[in-house]
């Protein structure tokens, strides 16, 4: 029995590591082309060459990241079958459509990205913009479809299990499962939000390193304003969609909400618990701040909403309680992003300041790594919070895992490859932009690497 447990833990760790690695590149794979599209549109509107340079430089980033995004996505897709054959057998029977349709989204993204990157000079501005729209659309559609499989895992629909057999399959009912729109919306919005704050963070970082008034400083200030306005608006909408996600948990996965909030006793006028660590023995959240009645209100829009606590569920069905911290971290970073965007827009757009204080630039810079961290927190909350199930109350994770033993060495190999790729991808970007500094492009000098890197 001990061996069985650790086998399951290794399999989960292995898939979790793959997803944690891939999700960074998948999210940026939506966010960055979206921001390139916005830059191209700004260029079209203002005729300011800087926006075009922005688009070109970020296209190179995108080109390099793609080298990791595509194969890590391939690993994620294929290792579902290798590590969780029991799960994929059910998915294959009932919920194959999102994967099927995702292939086409993937094709659209790959075809038009190649067209945008490698035929940049051969196609018209209109064709470039259409290509970028299709790239962003393809990436977003992939995210929506794959998130839909996750939604299905939480709110399975479109089939029944009779004596261990799957019957009455309705693949479209499975596709439009109750959580589809809420999950897909939140995933899409936060990916666009991450793209905006990665732009903002990079600009903040670059402005810290250039003196105010310099050409580079002005260039990055433009990128900063653009991304903070966009990021601010999208993060406000993301907050609303996050709120809707929590209300859906209240309805469909109450034990997940209870664990995320550290709520043990079922009660009306339930408090919202912020921070601290959840102690299952003492049945309390240590060192936490409590806001009376707030959880009930958030869950059902009324203070007398009864929120179900963990004690209503068998202990074996409790998700790991550390998801409380993931939940807090995700929401906290979301709030931070909104605040930073408001301050930045107020300072740059309303006060029309051209010089930004260092502390503010540092705060902008932080928003980039933090927004990626929030994506990680969100996915850990979503997937770990569903444990011990792969399909909520129907298929357990233990019944999904491969029967093959000795995953340890494979896991080690995967970790090594991810480490290698993580380091190399940063090094490649670093060397590339060191060789091709912004100042060359701003002063119209030819790019020494242009002949080698066929982007433009």
């Amino acid at each position, binding site marked *: 029995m001990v061996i069985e447990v650790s086998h399951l833990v290794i399999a989960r760790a292995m898939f979790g590591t793959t997803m944690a690695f891939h999700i960074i590149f998948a999210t940026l794979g939506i966010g960055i082309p979206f921001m390139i599209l916005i830059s191209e549109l700004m260029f079209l509107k203002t005729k300011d060459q800087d926006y075009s340079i922005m688009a070109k430089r970020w296209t*190179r980033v995108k*080109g*390099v990241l793609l*080298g*990791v995004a*595509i*194969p*890590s996505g*391939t*690993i994620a897709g*294929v*290792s579902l*079958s*290798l*590590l969780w*054959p029991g799960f*994929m*057998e*059910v998915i*294959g*029977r*009932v919920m*194959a*459509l999102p*994967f*099927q*349709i*995702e*292939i*086409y989204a*993937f*094709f*659209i993204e*790959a*075809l038009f*990205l*190649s*067209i945008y*990157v*490698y*035929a940049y000079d051969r*196609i018209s501005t209109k064709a470039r913009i259409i290509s970028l729209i299709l790239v962003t659309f393809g990436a977003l559609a992939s995210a929506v479809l794959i998130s839909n499989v996750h939604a299905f895992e939480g709110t399975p629909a479109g089939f029944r299990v009779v004596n261990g057999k799957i019957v009455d*399959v309705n*693949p*479209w009912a499975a596709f439009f499962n109750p959580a589809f729109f809420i999950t897909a919306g939140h995933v899409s919005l936060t990916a666009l939000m991450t793209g905006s704050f990665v732009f903002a963070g990079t600009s903040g970082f670059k402005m810290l390193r250039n003196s105010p008034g310099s050409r580079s400083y002005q260039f990055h200030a433009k990128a900063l304003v653009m991304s903070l306005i966009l990021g601010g608006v999208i993060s406000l909408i993301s907050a609303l969609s996050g709120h809707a996600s929590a209300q859906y948990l209240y309805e469909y996965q109450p034990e997940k909400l209870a664990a995320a909030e550290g709520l043990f006793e079922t009660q009306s006028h339930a408090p919202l618990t912020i921070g601290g660590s959840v102690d299952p023995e003492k049945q309390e959240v240590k060192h936490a701040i409590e806001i009376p009645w707030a959880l009930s209100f958030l869950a059902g829009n009324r203070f007398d909403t009864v929120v179900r606590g963990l004690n209503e569920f068998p202990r074996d069905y409790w998700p790991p309680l550390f998801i409380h911290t993931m939940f807090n971290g995700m929401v906290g970073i979301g709030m931070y992003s909104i605040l930073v965007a408001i301050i930045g827009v107020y300072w740059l757009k309303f006060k029309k300041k051209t010089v930004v204080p260092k502390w503010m630039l540092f705060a902008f810079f932080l928003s980039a790594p933090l927004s990626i961290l929030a994506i990680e927190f969100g996915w850990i909350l979503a997937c770990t919070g569903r444990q011990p199930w792969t399909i909520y109350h129907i298929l357990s994770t233990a019944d999904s895992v*491969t*029967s*093959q033993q000795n995953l340890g060495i*494979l896991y080690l190999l*995967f970790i090594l*490859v991810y480490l290698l*790729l993580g380091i*190399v*991808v940063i090094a490649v*970007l670093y060397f*590339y932009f060191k*060789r091709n500094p912004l100042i060359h492009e701003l002063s119209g000098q030819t790019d020494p*690497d242009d002949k*080698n890197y*066929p982007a433009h």
Partner: protein
Amino acid sequence: MYGLSLTDEILGITLIWGFVFIYAVMGAMDFGAGFWSMIYINRDKTNVTNIANRYLSPTWEVTNVFIVALVVAIYSMFPRAAYSLGTILLIPGSLILLLITIRSAFLVFSHAAEKYKRLLIYVSGITGILIPGLLIAVLPISQGGYVIEQNGRESLSLGLLFTSPNVYAFIAFAIISSLFLSSLLLADYSKTAGDLRAYGVYRRDALITGPISLICAFLIMVTLKTEANWIYIKMMDNLPLLITSAACFILTGALLMIPGGKGLKGIPRLAVIVTIIQFLLAGFVYGRAHLPYIIYDNETIRTGFTDPSSFRAVFIVYVVGFAILFPGFYFFWRLFMRDRSVRQTD
């Protein structure tokens, strides 16, 4: 025996066979081109490496989509078979994934990091050419005989696998065919681009690798006869098609020898087409003989098949999806493969 009536199962397995074939050809050209770009990296005066890179840069992502499409097609249409395949292929499958990852990443990186270009191209070239060898090992595994049962669990015996001459014949065939197909395609590509020196190099490579790939194919048949006789016998039912396939090979050779205008030897465009027909015929005979088994003699297309209503939905999505995507593929082909654009220098 059963007939070839067009049931849902046959339709499904034909689609999967189609994906296998498309990926085999596109993947062979892709991994082979990466290898050639590595081999000729030191010939600074010729454009041989550039030709390979110019083909590779825009196409590898699209090629990669097909392997995902293939895996998705298997678990959508034959979930029970996907369960067995996923279980027994854990180790080779993971190794393939890691190799694909390193290969693709380093291929992309080599374009951005000028300073380390050489090293990066070597890594992606070598890992790339190993991939077809490992991928094709799935075929002998599916022929049965390598899965052992331990404590009620089925698992792949790597010991049996890597002592089998048949497996090595398949591996050699995959690697050599990748080199053959890619050199043939690149010969055509360089002729279109008007690069005669590169054409000469790739034409020569195709003439060398072609006969070796045919020898490997014979070795597969010889070893199949002793190791998986059931499929050998069924393949021999279609002997005329196999002979036609071999004839196509000879025709390819002839097409590379005859004068092709502009004082050049060979009509590479036709040679590519005839070679694809050759592989199509051989692939059909193998696939036809493999039926009804997905994994011998455990999973058949009937035991592995999905829910009928799921299949209908999936099939409609295939038809609609490819209809929508077709203009995209056409636009892509026009931009990157057609004469005028290929000829443009980078």
